C-alpha cells in the first residue's frame, strides 16, 4: 500500500510539473517551447513581447491556478469530513455568498456611497477587501452559532440559510443595477485567475499557507471525526476546538480565493473524491497531499483549456471547471459504484 502511494505521489508530482509546463507554454499567442524555456530561465527570448507574456502574464496565472487548486481542494476535504457529507464543499457555510454579498455591495451598490468611497471600493483592492469582509462576517456568524449549537448538521443548515439570505440581498441589488454594473458583477462571478499582480499573488500565497498550516493541525481530529462525533469525543478529542480550527482554515482558504479569483465552482467539491478514489484510503494525512496535488493539476489543466490555444477567444474558468470536472467524477463514481 505504501509502495502504491509512493508510486502515485511520484506520478502526480510529475504530472503537476508537466501540466505546469503545458499551461505556461500554451496560450492564445503561439510561442515556441524553446522561447518559453529561455524566458523562464532568465535568458532573453527573441521577442520582447513573448518574454513579457511568459514571465508577467502566464507565470503569475499558473501560480494563481496552483494556489486556487490547493486552497479550494483542501477546504473541500475539510468540509466533507467535518459535516460527514460528500456534497459539502468550501462554500457550504455560505462563505462564497458572504463574499458575493460584499462584492455585490461594492459593484452594484456603490451608487449609494459618496464618490470618494466608491472610487476606492471599485478599484481591485476595494473588491478584494469587500469580498474578505463579506466572507469574514459570515465566518464570525458561523463561529458564534457553532458555539451555541452542539451538532455539525445544524451548523450546515445555518450555513445554507446564510447562503439563501445573502443571495436574496444580492438579487435585490442586481434588480436595481445598471447594465454595466451587472456585467461587472457577472464577470466577477464567473471567476478569473488571469488578472492578479505579483502583489496580489503574494497576499493570496500567505493566506493559503496559513490555511494549510491550520489544516495540517486538524488532520488527526479529522481522522477521528470520520468515526462520528461521539466516538471522537470518547477518544479524548476536543470537538469544539477541532471544529473552530477546521472552520477557520476553510474560511481563510475559501475567503481569500473568492476575493482574488471569484467564486470558482466544482474544484472544492470534486477533488477530495478524486483523491479518495485514486488512493483508496480515508487517512487524512495521505488525502491531504493527494488533494493538494490533484487540485493543482486540475486547475492548471482547466486554465489551459479555458485559454483556448489556437482560437481568438477564451472561456470563463468557472465554466471549464464544471464542464470538464463533472463528467470525470460521474464516470469515476459509476466505475467504483460507491463514494464515501
Amino acid at each position, binding site marked *: 500500500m505504501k509502495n502504491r502511494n509512493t508510486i502515485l505521489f511520484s506520478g502526480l508530482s510529475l504530472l503537476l510539473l508537466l501540466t505546469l509546463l503545458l499551461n505556461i507554454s500554451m*496560450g*492564445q*499567442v503561439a510561442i515556441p517551447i524553446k522561447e518559453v524555456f529561455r524566458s523562464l530561465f532568465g535568458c532573453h527570448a527573441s521577442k*520582447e*513581447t*513573448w518574454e*513579457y*507574456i511568459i514571465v*508577467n*502574464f*502566464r507565470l503569475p496565472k499558473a501560480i494563481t491556478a496552483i494556489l486556487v487548486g490547493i486552497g479550494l481542494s483542501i477546504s473541500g476535504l475539510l468540509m466533507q469530513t467535518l459535516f460527514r457529507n460528500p456534497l459539502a464543499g468550501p462554500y457550504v457555510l455560505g462563505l462564497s455568498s458572504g463574499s458575493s454579498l460584499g462584492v455585490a455591495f461594492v459593484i452594484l451598490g456603490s*451608487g449609494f456611497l459618496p464618490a470618494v468611497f466608491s472610487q476606492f471600493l471599485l*478599484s*481591485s483592492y476595494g473588491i478584494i477587501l469587500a469580498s474578505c469582509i463579506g466572507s469574514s462576517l459570515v465566518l464570525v456568524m458561523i463561529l458564534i452559532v457553532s458555539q451555541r449549537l452542539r451538532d455539525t448538521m445544524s451548523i450546515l443548515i445555518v450555513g445554507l440559510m446564510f447562503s439563501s439570505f445573502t443571495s436574496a440581498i444580492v438579487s435585490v441589488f442586481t434588480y436595481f443595477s*445598471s447594465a454595466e454594473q451587472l*456585467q*461587472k458583477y457577472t*464577470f*466577477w462571478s*464567473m471567476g*478569473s485567475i*488571469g*488578472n492578479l*499582480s505579483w502583489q496580489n499573488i503574494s497576499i493570496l500565497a500567505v493566506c493559503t499557507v496559513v490555511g494549510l498550516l491550520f489544516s495540517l493541525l486538524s488532520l488527526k481530529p479529522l481522522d477521528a471525526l470520520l468515526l462520528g462525533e461521539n466516538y471522537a469525543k470518547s477518544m479524548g478529542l476536543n470537538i469544539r476546538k477541532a471544529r473552530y480550527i477546521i472552520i477557520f482554515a476553510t474560511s481563510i482558504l475559501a475567503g481569500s480565493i473568492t476575493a482574488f479569483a471569484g467564486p470558482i465552482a466544482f474544484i472544492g467539491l470534486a477533488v477530495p473524491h478524486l483523491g479518495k478514489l485514486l488512493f483508496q484510503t480515508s487517512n487524512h494525512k495521505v488525502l491531504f497531499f493527494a488533494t493538494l496535488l490533484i487540485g493543482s493539476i486540475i486547475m492548471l489543466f482547466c486554465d489551459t483549456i479555458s*485559454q483556448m490555444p489556437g482560437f*481568438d*477567444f*477564451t472561456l470563463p474558468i468557472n465554466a471549464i471547471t464544471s464542464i470538464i470536472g463533472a463528467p470525470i467524477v460521474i464516470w469515476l463514481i459509476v466505475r467504483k459504484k460507491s463514494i464515501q
Partner: protein
Amino acid sequence: MKSMISRILFSFALLFLFSCKNESKSETTISSKNEVRYATGFSIQNYFGYSVVTVKNPWPKATKTYTYILKEKNGLVPDSLKQNTIISVPIKTIVVTSTTHIPSLEMLDEVNTLVGFPHCDYISSEKVRARIDAGKIKELGNNQDLNTEVILDLQPNVIIGYGIDNKNPTLDNLQKSGLKVMLNGDWNEETALGKAEWIKFFGALYGKQKQADEIFTKIEKDYLKTITIAKMAKTTPTILAGDMFEDRWYLPKGTSWGSLLLKQANSNYLWQETSGTGSLSLSFETVFEKAKNADIWITSGQFSSLKEMTDLNPHYAKFDAFRNKNVYSFSGKKGKTGGILYYELAPNRPDLVLKDLVKILHPELLPGYQPFFFEKLQ
C-alpha cells in the same frame, strides 16, 4: 317629381365623384420617395396628410418590420394602413428610453416634450438635467422593466422604446393599454451617418422634418469635409483601441462604426481586417503581441488618468503608446450625475467624433480645432 329625383341622383353622383376624387387625390399626391439616405434601419415616406415610418432593424437579425403612421391634423389615413400604429403628429409629450434619443430632442428644440426616462442619472444634457431637477421628467426605472404605472399615469403621446431582441413584455403591456409605442434601432445602425440620420425619425414626430433634414445635412457636410481633410495626411499611425474589462480586452470589430471612423480619420487600426459590427473580446496576450508598438491608444472611456489604468492593470504600462503618453479617452466629459457625454451625443454627432480623431492622429491638419469628446490622459 322626376326633376326632383334626377336632381337628387345628380347630387349623389357629384358627391360620389368628388368623394372618389378626394380619395384619389390623397392617393395620387404621393411623394413616396424615402427621405432617408444613409440609415438602413428606417424609412420615411410622406403622403398627403400622413407619413409612413418603417423601422426595419430594431435589433440584429430582426425578421419583422414595424410600420407606423404619423397622421397630421385632419389627415386621412387609407383603410389599408389602419391596422398599423397611428400616431397623431406633432406630438406634445414623449417618453424616450435611450440617452442616444436625447440629442435629437435637444437639436430639434423639443426637450420640453420629454416627460419620462428610465435611469435619469445617465443623461448628461444640461437642458434635460435642468428639467429633471425641476421634477418635470419622471424616473421610469429600468429599460427592461419600465415602471408601467408611472407611464400610464403620464399618458405620453408616444413612447420610443428600443429592444435587444423581440421580447420586451413591458412595451407590449404598454401597447395593450392603448399607449403608442415606437421602436427605435439607432444603436443597430452600422455607419456613423446612418446613426446620425435618426434625427429625422424624431423630426417626423414633431412635424419638423425640414428642420431635421437641415441639421443632418450640416452634420453630413462637415463629416464628409473632414474625411477629405484626413486624406491629406502624410502618415498613417497604428491604433490600439479599447481596454480590458475583467480579463477580456474589448475592442471594435473591423466593420463597426468605431472602426470605420478610425479608418476614415486615416489611421491603421490594427483590427480593421476583422469582420462584424460588435466588439471583439480578446485575451491580453493576443492584444499585447499585436499592439505593443501601436502609436496611439484610444481607450473605451473607463479611465480618466494613466495612473488609474495601471492601478487596475499594471500590464498597460508595457504598451509603447502608454509609455509615450499617447493614450486618449472620452471619459472627461461627464454629466452632473456621472453619465458620459460621448455615449449620449457621439452617435448624433459623428462630425465631431471624426474631427477629434483627425486632430489626435494628424494635429497639423486641423490647427485651430480643440477636440470636443476626446482628451489625452495624463
